């Protein structure tokens, strides 16, 4: 029995030999005592190794990792539901366009005072509007600008947009994403002639935004 025979015997018990090699090994095991003893040792080694990987610890580990995966799937679904804002705005925009764009936008503008114009769409002069009451941006203290910015940042990150303009009443907010590191984006936005910094990081599947 040579080194190649040992390799083939090992592969044979792993079910990884060709039909010809299998025939060769079977006849070798019938005729060669050393090969037969070696094969028995391989079987014993395989048994011990399999026992290690199929231990109770491994089974418990499998269970806990399966639970972990389920949690991650739920978190990812939750995280993605936060990304629907852009789609909503897009659909509303299309509806506004279909219903005679200028009149529809002007009417919504008059009611809500808020007009959102992503800069990447300005070339086509398509206007997108949102109903800030329906979206929950009106609080007892007024319009929640931080929340609007936070949601827009998520949209921008999702659509890979670095710059966007939001028009709220007579104010124009220019948002720029200047840095993307790992799971964080940062940059600045101009609102009422003041420059604000932001940093938005993905944590546990949800974006958290801080402003300076």
């Amino acid at each position, binding site marked *: 029995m040579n080194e190649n025979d*040992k*390799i083939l015997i090992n592969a044979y018990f792993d079910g990884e030999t060709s039909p010809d090699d299998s025939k060769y090994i079977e006849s070798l095991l019938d005729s060669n005592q050393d090969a037969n003893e070696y094969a028995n*040792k391989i079987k*014993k080694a395989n048994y011990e190794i399999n026992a290690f*990987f199929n231990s109770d610890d491994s089974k418990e*580990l*499998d269970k806990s990792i399966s639970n972990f995966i389920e949690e991650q*799937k739920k978190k*990812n679904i939750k995280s993605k539901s936060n990304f629907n804002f852009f789609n909503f705005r897009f659909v509303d925009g299309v509806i506004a366009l279909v219903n005679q764009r200028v009149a529809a936008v002007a009417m919504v503008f008059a009611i809500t005072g808020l007009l959102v114009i992503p800069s990447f769409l300005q070339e086509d002069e398509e206007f997108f509007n949102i109903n800030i009451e329906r979206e929950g941006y009106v609080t007892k203290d007024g319009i929640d600008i931080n929340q609007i910015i936070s949601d827009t940042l998520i949209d921008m990150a999702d659509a890979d947009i670095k710059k966007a303009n939001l028009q709220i009443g007579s104010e124009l907010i220019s948002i720029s994403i200047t840095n993307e590191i*790992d799971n964080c984006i940062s940059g600045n936005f101009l609102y009422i002639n003041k420059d604000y910094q932001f940093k938005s990081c993905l944590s546990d599947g949800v974006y958290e935004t801080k402003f300076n």
Partner: protein
Amino acid sequence: MSNFESILFSDSLKMKMINLAMSKTFNKFDAEDLVQQTYLKALERQDQFRGDKLDPWVITILKNIFIDSTRKKKEDLLGDDTPELVANDESSSVLLERDKDKCLKGLSEKEREIIALRQTNSYDEIAGDLDIKNGTLRQMFSRAKEKFMRCMGFFDE
């Protein structure tokens, strides 16, 4: 669920990661940490994944996290004067388990990786995941098993 997530969360990749983690840590708690960190890192860096095969990419992440944590543990242990506990009156089955662990630990990292991956995968798949040739893999398997058998005393009988 995206295509990336369906492959990442597949049973086959999960079992690869569990077996690899057990073969590296020999401890279900450390293995659990290692696998969970690998999943989180893979999700966090999914934008950086370039290629058509996710498994080798995820396996590399797992190996790197393990190397980092081992390095950190070594640094933490420097200057630690805590004496090692010595167990007495161990049953023969416990001793056999320890022998098995010791003999698996005696293999090289690569040898343990191929043995761990063999639990659920064919030679061709392992060769692809670890970027080695099938022929080399067969040789490595044979040598690793022989090393394990010698350590376990199978040739002393």
